[in-house]
């Protein structure tokens, strides 16, 4: 039986009178590629933020690799293996590509650095971190541009770097927040290929608006509407689901 890497139970978030997320219970299996879609106001981003720890729930529980992480701080969730990428590239613009990746790698090796070393040892003097940095740079194809400043990169390369940051923290589950926003079809394809290349052996949870993309790459899809879970299933099941169709098209033909 496959392990469940992520599970939410009755997850609810209220902002005053507005219930943004209402009793969402989903579970993602180890190695699965799960996408979350839904029309405007569905609560996708809020759910996402509840899982990554950016928001705390009004009710409900989040379990990661079997452990209750509902009250665990965001940075600690990363340490446990829950990685997250950002929608609009949020890389460290003024730092080099290499430094960006190294910082991410460093964060998961921090137990191996004692306080004295943290303050005084040259940051490039930690073999394991340097090695991992090199590996990740290779995987995202930015080894040649490693010494450029991140903000000087083209948009597509910044996206790669963003994925590199996630990859370097060696996560078991990666939350991807609209990774292809603002991209052309070609760039989207390239990004998805990259995700496929480097992240395919991990569990992935994707929020996206690009339905074509989602249909193509997901193992399972969860559809949210008005904060509630409308349906979950394989792409074929979702495509043929009348309720889902109505949610998007609003019952066009009367």
């Amino acid at each position, binding site marked *: 039986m496959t392990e469940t890497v992520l599970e939410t139970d009755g997850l609810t978030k209220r902002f005053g009178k507005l219930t943004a997320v209402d009793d969402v219970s989903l579970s993602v299996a180890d190695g699965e590629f799960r996408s979350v879609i839904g029309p405007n106001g569905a609560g996708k981003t809020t759910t996402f933020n509840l899982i990554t720890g950016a928001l705390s729930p009004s009710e409900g529980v989040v379990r990661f690799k079997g452990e209750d992480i509902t009250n665990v701080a965001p940075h600690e969730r990363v340490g446990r293996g829950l990685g997250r990428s950002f929608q*609009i590239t949020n890389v460290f613009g003024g730092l080099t590509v290499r430094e960006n990746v190294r910082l991410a790698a460093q964060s998961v090796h921090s137990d191996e650095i004692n306080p004295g070393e943290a*303050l005084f040892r040259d940051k490039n003097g930690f073999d394991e971190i340097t090695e991992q940095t090199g590996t990740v740079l290779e995987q995202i194809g930015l080894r040649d541009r490693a010494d450029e400043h991140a903000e000087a990169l083209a948009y597509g390369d910044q996206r790669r770097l963003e994925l590199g940051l996630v990859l370097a923290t060696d996560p078991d589950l990666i939350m991807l927040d609209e990774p292809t926003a603002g991209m052309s079809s070609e760039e989207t394809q390239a990004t998805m290929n990259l995700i496929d290349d480097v992240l395919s052996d991990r569990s992935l949870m994707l929020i996206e608006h690009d339905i074509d993309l989602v249909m193509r790459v997901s193992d399972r899809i969860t559809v949210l509407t008005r904060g509630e879970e409308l349906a979950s299933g394989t792409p074929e099941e979702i495509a043929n689901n009348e309720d889902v169709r109505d949610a998007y098209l609003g019952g066009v033909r009367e």
Partner: protein
Amino acid sequence: MVAADFIEQLLNGLTLGMVYVLLAAGLSVIFGVMDVINFSHGELFALGAYFALTIIAPFGAGTGFWVAIVVAPVVVGLIGAAIERTTVRPLYGRDPLYHILLTFGLVLVINDAIRLIWGTQQRQLAVPEYLSQPISILGVQVSVYNYFMIVFAALLAVVTWYLLNRTKYGMIIRAGSQDREMVRNVGIDIDQYYTLVFGVGAALAAVAGIVLGGYQNVNTGMGNSVIIPAFVVVVLGGLGSFRGAVFGGLLVGIVQTLMRAYNGTVLATFGDTTLSVPNLEGLTVYLLMIAVLLVKPQGLFGTRGEESDGEGEILVGGYGGILADSTRVRLGGVAVVALALAPVAILLMGNQYYLVVLNEILIWAIFALSLDIVMGYAGLVPLGHTMFYGVGAYTAALVMLHYSQSVFVVLLGAILLCAILAWIVGSLSIRVSGVYFAMITLAFAELLYSAVFKFDFTGGSDGLLGFEAFIGLGSLGASLSNIEFGLLGYEIGQQFVFFYLALLIAVLSFLFARRMMNAPFGSVLQSIRESEERAEFIGYDVNRYKRRAFVISGGMAGLAGGLLAVSPSTVIISPDQTLNWIHSGEVIVIALFGGMGTLYGPMIGSGVFFGAEEFLSSYTDQWRLIIGTMFILFVLFVPRGIVSIPSLVAQRLETANNADGSVDMDEPEVRSDD
């Protein structure tokens, strides 16, 4: 009669309160609409009083006063509008830090301009006879002027309220503070109104200055003495809220006055213990400000939510520099060697005074370096950093007086105590961000400033003296003042010895900071400056790192303060010399001048600042005016500091060769809705 007494004090408090209301109203609305923190508001206040002096002169006390109270605010209002147009307007969209810097520069310029035009002597504002009569109503005795101030200011407040809430322009301004972009989207150019807001705010401040000037006197320090209470009021009442400014102003005025009047009064006696009003005068308002910032940062009436930071960034100096790292290291080495030889040159010149200046530069270089750690690297902007400098100095002096004169012990004590202080202050302050963080650190600094006046062991307003350092440990070594020997016919004295001590410490501090920035800890700080959110989400406990950076920075600033106490030029450690908020501003100016985020930049900035001060003050009394102007120009045009000048020049030459468009990087981010 106790009751009459109390009412008198209440009236006094109300009087002061109304002055605060006028000041805070302008300050608050300016922030609410324009997102600008105007430090120069105090000087505009003073300017009002000074212009009044000039206007009254030809008219005489009677009519002159009334003419002045109408004309002077108009003049100051126009000056305010001009300031907005020329200096504030270009800075929209930049990190709020730059407004703070700019308006601080304006403080220097305006204050020095006042000294230049009107001289430094205290003056009396001629108030009409009939207003300065004492008057007794129901046993309560105050001056007619008190009632006049209260009524007049209240009238103005009502008029301002009316303008804001019942006129077209007021409506536009209110809309602008609620949703600036939407005002544009209905076809109104909101920028034009900023000038109006700034001008009216300045005029109100001017009226407050005239009114208070008549009550007390007119002096060059009056702006400085009201600006901090004004900020307290604004924070209390809520940034952007007119109602809050009124409430806060009256509250602070009354509380301040009552505490001053009644401190030490015995309230009750229980057997052996007496319960009396604690001597908290001066401290209460700052404690109140800190409490408000921690519990409800938007103030009692404020409605603005959490800041929209992330729209600006701290522009750092060394980024994209044209010099290679190895060249910089070599240049650094050359600089150190040159400095080490400088005293020799000075000796040969025969004038030891320059050595004193160099010593000052070294102390402030360390202070500025400490600031760079939090500001240029972690991206935090503290407005109260002088608290560590001051506490370091006081600690060092106290250690020398009571415990040990050994310079090692003294400096270590200063560092440790400041580190602990920084841990406390930092833990509380990092709970808020942006402008609120700046304000809360300022409040802590002011708290300490007021506190040292009250205690005997800190020497009160006189400060501490009679301390002396011992270069050595235990019985090995010599007292600093005793070190004197001849060498090749020249006299080597304590200034000399201290110089090398300070140089050594400065170099060690720099190397320490540089090592730290190249180590894992420092690298994380930089990532926080670049993108706090991202740093959190690759697994770093951002708050912990900020706190630690603050502690290290505080400790180093304490070291600088300790050196000040050890320095042979220092005879007294007094509150104004070490803890006055103006030093917090100065060290930020120095760091910006040099170039933040480089470590060596702020140190160079110290050299430039004091060097310029020395050079200029031998030619003119108005050196602050010149430095202030230079500084404003830097904020506007060279925000990355002196160290960025070479690459700026290189860039200009390059764009002259190929004209290309620039990528607009300042647009706000959008999220598709969910």
